[in-house]
């Protein structure tokens, strides 16, 4: 029971601070999951792979997989509810107010700093995931095969509208052939 409560509170907190949606929430999930020693970064990378292969929000999907790993389907439902509930509450309570004040100096100033910080957290997450998966900073400093995969995927994701699911499937096939 206490694990259920722990899962709920942790993901509720993540959902509450998860500004920017999607991949902006990954660094927060990473920090909270390591804090609880639920998963290491490599396991979390696999979780995100599963989450990114499914349609829908990457953060809620990741929460679902982590909850599932920790406590089966009830854990998955609790984690997914926990991360989504803050959105519902914030929008219901502050939604109309925000639309009225979205041009207010203080609101704009808050998001000016907040958005820049969020980018920083995502860049940090990319670096951390690269290190933890031995892509950079390992015994060879840079793993050529891996870094090539990162760069090609990055260019495809930025320059084309490729569906991440296809990219993941293609990379999986490459993995079977090369590794």
């Amino acid at each position, binding site marked *: 029971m206490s694990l259920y409560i722990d899962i709920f509170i942790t993901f509720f907190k993540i959902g509450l*601070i998860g500004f920017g949606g999607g991949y902006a929430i990954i660094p927060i999930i990473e920090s909270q999951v390591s804090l609880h020693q639920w998963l290491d970064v490599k396991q979390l990378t*696999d979780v995100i*792979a599963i989450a990114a292969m*499914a*349609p829908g929000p*990457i953060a809620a999907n990741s929460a679902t997989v982590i909850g599932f790993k920790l406590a089966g389907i009830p854990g998955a439902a609790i984690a997914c509810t926990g991360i989504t509930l803050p959105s519902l509450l914030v929008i219901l309570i502050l939604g109309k107010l*925000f639309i009225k004040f979205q041009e207010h100096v203080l609101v704009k100033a*808050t998001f000016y700093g907040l958005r820049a*910080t969020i980018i920083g957290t995502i*860049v940090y997450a990319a670096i951390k995931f690269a290190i933890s998966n031995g892509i950079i900073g390992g015994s060879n400093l840079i793993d050529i095969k891996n870094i090539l995969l990162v760069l090609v995927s990055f260019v495809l994701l930025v320059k084309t509208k490729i569906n991440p699911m296809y990219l993941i499937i293609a990379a999986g096939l490459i993995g079977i052939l090369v590794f």
Partner: protein
Amino acid sequence: MKNVNEREIDFKILSDLFFTFFKLSPISFGGGFAMMPVLEAEIVEKKKWIDDKQIVDTFVLAQSAPGAIATNSAIFVGYQIAGVPGAIAAMMGMIIPTFVIVIVLALLFVFFQTNHYVLAALNGIRPVIVALIASAAYKMSKTSLIDKTCWIICLLCVAVLLFCPDINIIVVILSGAFIGIAIVKIKKMFSTSVKTK
């Protein structure tokens, strides 16, 4: 009699909301931004639930509120049409299909995670996940890092997170918001003092 009618209409709208987002949810690959045009076509043009101005407000709010942009949009569309029950119906419609798909994938993963081929495939997939995260930062930076000050805040944030692992990321994010307020205030003071000279 009127009461009964109202209840019927309510239920109809709620189920309509639920199933509209239920249908949209499984095709929402590529995250919130990719979903916006699909949502607009369905909600504004086809269903005529809300108008152009309202959908713009919805997307602004969806990006500003914490959480997933697509789910946030669904919640606020539901709320505008049918109040709190509408918000919940739209949210459930958005979440349930992807939840089920994710559970199926997770079950498959647990079943096959020791398989030789799956392990090899994961070795190929992990770099893509790094690229996915990095590309999200790159795409968002275009609208978020609008001047030099933003770049400095961003780099400072990366440095703090990398070199001071004891500082909680939640504290870092909230500090970013306060730094934003402080900088805008300082800039304003500076520009007025320049003007007065």
